[in-house]
């Protein structure tokens, strides 16, 4: 039982996104006391990539950060670098995400890229949304869209790496957050590992981003990949996926997990329970539950209606 929230401004305007996601995840924190996280999409920086790296579980993070910057400097220019606890936040000149991630991970087996993209920042840790903001203040973050997650672990470890949202790895700016249980996870994971894909956690939710990244790299559109996942994933799942300019949900054919949708002229807000959006703002909209076997995508400038799988 986890909590999901999502928000997108349909007119491509920057909003107090951090505050909105903070309020909504706080309203859901009873659905997930183990960890909290947000994926925030801020102002794009042309020609730059934002990178967040976990430096390890313990040790001298400052020293590790120096090693990390040295490693990255060999393949691109580092413009900004900052260490907060085990997190290293960097701004670098754009390079191939796969090449950059490989370079970082080659340096140390402790290094793990948490997020990478022109707009994406993923911040997550063990604890409540309040704790998250105390460590990494994000309430003042301005952006156009984002997703949030509160986790109640059922199968895998409770630590930063196993927290959500997940960056999809390999594709810049693609993030996912999941509520439910992908029951054919082990089968899919074995298949993917045979193709050389690396998994960072034991969390079944990690497979969603991997799946979408694979389908996109095979030439599917984002919408096609989301629709195909309705056929390929078994179990209970409602998941949110976000890219540099869109927000989407997918709800399994049995409708095992709730998802409320609030759509107005200016914005769309998604939440596992209506209490999340009501915690943020309590008037001026009607909430509806998303249908089973359904996907919907909202682009920053263009809107598509919910569609059923074929």
């Amino acid at each position, binding site marked *: 039982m986890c909590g999901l929230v999502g928000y997108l401004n349909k007119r491509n305007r920057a909003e107090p996104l951090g505050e909105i996601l903070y309020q909504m995840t706080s309203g859901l924190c009873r659905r997930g006391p183990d960890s909290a996280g947000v994926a925030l999409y801020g102002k794009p920086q042309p020609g730059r990539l934002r990178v967040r790296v976990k430096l390890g579980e313990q040790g001298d993070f400052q020293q590790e950060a120096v090693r990390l910057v040295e490693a990255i400097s060999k393949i691109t220019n580092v413009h900004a670098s900052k260490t907060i606890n085990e997190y290293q936040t960097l701004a670098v000149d754009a390079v191939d995400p796969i090449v950059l991630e490989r370079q970082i991970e080659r340096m140390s087996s402790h290094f793990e890229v948490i997020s990478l993209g022109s707009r994406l920042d993923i911040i997550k840790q063990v604890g409540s949304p309040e704790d998250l903001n105390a460590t990494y203040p994000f309430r003042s973050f301005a952006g156009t869209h984002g997703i949030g997650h509160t986790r109640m672990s059922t199968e895998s470890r409770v630590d930063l790496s196993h927290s959500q949202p997940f960056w999809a790895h390999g594709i810049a700016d693609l993030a996912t957050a999941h509520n439910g249980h992908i029951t054919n996870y082990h089968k899919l994971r074995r298949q993917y590992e045979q193709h050389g894909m690396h998994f960072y956690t034991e969390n079944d939710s990690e497979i969603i981003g991997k799946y979408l990244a694979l389908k996109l790299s095979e030439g599917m559109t984002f919408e096609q990949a989301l629709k195909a996942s309705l056929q390929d994933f078994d179990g209970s799942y409602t998941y949110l996926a976000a890219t540099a300019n869109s927000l989407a949900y997918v709800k399994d054919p049995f*409708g095992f997990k709730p998802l409320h949708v609030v759509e107005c002229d200016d914005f769309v807000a998604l939440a596992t*329970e209506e209490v999340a959006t*009501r915690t943020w703002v309590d008037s001026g909209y*009607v*909430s509806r*539950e998303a249908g089973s076997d359904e996907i919907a995508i909202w682009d920053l400038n263009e809107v598509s209606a919910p569609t059923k799988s074929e």
Partner: protein
Amino acid sequence: METIDAKGKSSREINREIRRLMEQGSRQIRVLSPRALHNLAVGIVEPVEIAFEGSVGSYCGGMVDGPSIRIQGSAGWGLAECMMSGSFVVEGNAGSSVAASIRGGTVVVHGNAAARAGIAMKGGLLVIEGDCGYMAGFMMQKGTLIVCGNSADALADSMYEGTVYLGGEARSLGNDTNVSEPDEQDWSFLRRTLARHGISADRPFKKIVAGRRLWNFEKQEFGLWKEVL
């Protein structure tokens, strides 16, 4: 009419306040800004009128016997679950499993209902003015489900008894259904019932009941059972 301002209050505090007012003899209570909190007005066994001025969360009014509850917003999962008697009106939409396992009473949803509406109903009446989600009326045992709009997949799957009326189209019907045109008695029931809630019966209603092929196991119909299980 007594008023509870729920702003800043938890579900438990609101429920205690409702009970305190009932003990003092209040028979009409309105609750302001319920903020979609869960488990509101559960287990009430007196004929009290409660109006929630806003949305309620999951399991509102579960296991009640007798109250009349109006929700001026939407409801989360499991509204009125296991009700014995009473009435609910939802002005907005209802989440999954609305009126699950009710034994009596009436639930009216003026918006749409999500998956498994009226699952395992054992009596009572559920009216959905809009559309219903996946598997509405699944394993219904008694009672009536009226869906004025369209249905998602597997409507009225594996019913024992009871009746489903559908005013729009079903994306697919469930296993073992028997669809027929409503007779004059059905139409009179539909008109009377819907008029009571200000809903027009002027729709091409179909009547759906159990096909009764799953009532007993027949070896010749193994294919049907294989499909169901």
